[in-house]
């Protein structure tokens, strides 16, 4: 089965270079939007997934979908810390469990305006639970029981009064920033301090969650089931990875929807541009189609040749779109997550995002080329030769 030589179509693209460039740029712009949204989504997903550990259990109020909605009394916290045998104990025999308070607070951004920033009150055991995942990168850790705070490195350049040595007003209390820390995932966009001091300052007498390190074979559903008929508390128990996946899914869906919607609208435009470009190309080359047919090329070979040319245009647009997005790799941006607090995350131009974008571009090329290629293939040799 003979096909029209590829160099004919490739060289034809160069011959009508201005039309080729315009079409490639139209497809490229569409793909840049899609690739950009996919890279954001990837960055966001990775931000939380990399932080999630399966050996960390979260205890929250039954029915709470996030720690921002959760509330556990101090008494319930003590019960959980002491009673759950699956919670690992440290060298001193203390349960590796920490009652934490979480609240989003409005703070001023460097670039103007305000945003919600996650404030987390933690117990010293929190640092033991996280181990090397949380590292002080500047200054020192806060002293328990004092009005000292440490700031996640993701906030240093975004939120005012959050550099080491600054004083930060929270409600009516003034806290001093004594250090900065890096942590996996969203922790790097939080401010941490002593849980009792922050609870007082924010007037929240309850805790949001208990973070506990559990034995590897712990059955979290079984733990929750043990409290089904307990009148003192009925906690919701899940591991950290599942919790974070549940927190990112809605935003991931939103990214995909917005990205998909924009790409669809722009894609329709790109398809029209591609179709128009191919129709113009075929119009200008009707005579050449006649020559190919006269020489003996069959209709399907003509169809494949022009569809291939359109596919090539789409692929070139895809590559251009991806190249436009590549410089964003690692660039940080922020958004408000499901707990309504600011998180920073980086664009991640992953191979999967790029491949998806290029496949989408190829799809645009094919859709845009079908009608013109079909039209070219249906011409009779004499029609094509006469029109040229």
């Amino acid at each position, binding site marked *: 089965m*003979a096909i029209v*030589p590829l*160099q*004919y179509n490739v*060289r*034809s693209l*160069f*011959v009508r270079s201005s039309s080729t460039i315009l079409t490639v740029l139209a497809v490229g712009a569409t793909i840049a939007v899609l690739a950009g949204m996919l890279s954001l989504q990837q960055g966001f997903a990775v931000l939380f997934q990399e932080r999630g550990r399966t050996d960390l259990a979260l205890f929250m109020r039954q029915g709470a979908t996030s720690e921002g909605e959760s509330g556990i009394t101090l008494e319930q916290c003590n019960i959980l810390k002491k009673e759950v045998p699956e919670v690992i104990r440290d060298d001193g025999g203390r349960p590796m469990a920490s009652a934490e308070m979480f609240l989003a607070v409005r703070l001023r951004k460097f670039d103007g305006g305000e945003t919600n920033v996650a404030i987390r009150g933690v117990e010293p055991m929190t640092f033991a639970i996280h181990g090397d995942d949380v590292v002080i990168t500047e200054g020192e850790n806060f002293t328990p029981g004092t009005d000292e705070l440490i700031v996640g490195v993701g906030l240093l350049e975004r939120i005012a009064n959050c550099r080491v040595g600054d004083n930060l007003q929270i409600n009516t209390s003034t806290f001093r920033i004594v250090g900065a820390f890096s942590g996996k995932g969203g922790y790097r966009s939080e401010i941490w301090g002593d849980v009792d001091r922050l609870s007082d300052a924010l007037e929240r007498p309850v805790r949001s969650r208990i973070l506990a390190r559990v034995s590897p074979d712990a059955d979290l559903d079984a733990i929750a089931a043990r409290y089904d008929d307990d009148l003192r508390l009925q906690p919701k128990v899940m591991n950290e990875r599942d919790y974070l996946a549940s927190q990112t899914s809605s935003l991931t869906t939103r990214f995909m929807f917005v990205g998909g919607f924009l790409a669809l609208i722009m894609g329709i435009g790109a398809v029209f541009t591609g179709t128009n470009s191919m129709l113009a190309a075929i119009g200008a080359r009707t*005579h*050449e189609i*006649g*020559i*190919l*047919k*006269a*020489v*003996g*090329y*069959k*209709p*399907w070979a003509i169809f494949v040749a022009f569809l291939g040319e359109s596919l090539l245009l789409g692929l070139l647009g895809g590559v251009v779109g991806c190249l436009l997005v590549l410089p964003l790799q690692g660039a940080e941006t922020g958004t408000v997550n499901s707990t309504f607090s600011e998180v920073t995350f980086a664009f991640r131009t992953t191979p999967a995002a790029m491949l998806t974008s290029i496949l989408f571009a190829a799809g645009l090329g094919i859709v845009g080329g079908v009608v013109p290629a079909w039209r070219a293939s249906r011409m*009779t*040799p*004499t029609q094509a*030769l006469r029109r040229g």
Partner: protein
Amino acid sequence: MPAAIRLRSVTKSYSKGGQTLRVLDELDLDMDAATFYALMGPSGSGKTTLLNLVGGLDQADEGVVQVGDEDLAAMQSSELAEWRSEHVGFVFQGFNLLPVLSARENVELPLLLAPLSRRQRRQQAERALELVGLADRMNHKPRELSGGQEQRVAIARAIATDPQVILADEPTGDLDRDTADAVLEMLRRLNRELHKTILMVTHDPQAATYADKTIHLDKGKLGRIEENATPTGGS
């Protein structure tokens, strides 16, 4: 084996501006194999239409168009395409080369449809170009060639697959006298030395002197067939 051409009661009409124009009207015509024919007649007499039917570029509304053993009227468009690639070579007035391909690539175009290796294809294309005296212009694009050279590339393309029939539509219409004579001389040689059946549409009586016979068409019907006892060229 050279192919004879036989037309029986061939009718072909076109619609133009809401009117049907009968271009060929129950035409009967026999052409011998390995013979050089000139096809002449006033504009609108059906010369190019006849050429297109014999070349399988178009199909008759009625009648039989037989080239060799094949009845072209009974073929589908894909079968016709395959038949064209094997049995017929075209030479057009406007040369009809693909501008983005080199001379050799243009000549290779029909060879890509044949079951040949890349090396065989290349050799065959180069041989055809040598035959028309363009061995030193193989890698030139059409725009880098003169009109006469372009037409010689077109002839090389027409003979590359070694077809039995060569159809030429005003092959010298765009050429000056000397170049035209050289092209006609080449066609004459293809007929004499390679025994090709050649049908050439022309308005030029001098071009017709290169043919063995001249067919005159008039209003879609056969006028007369003149025999040329001493054709020009090919000596």
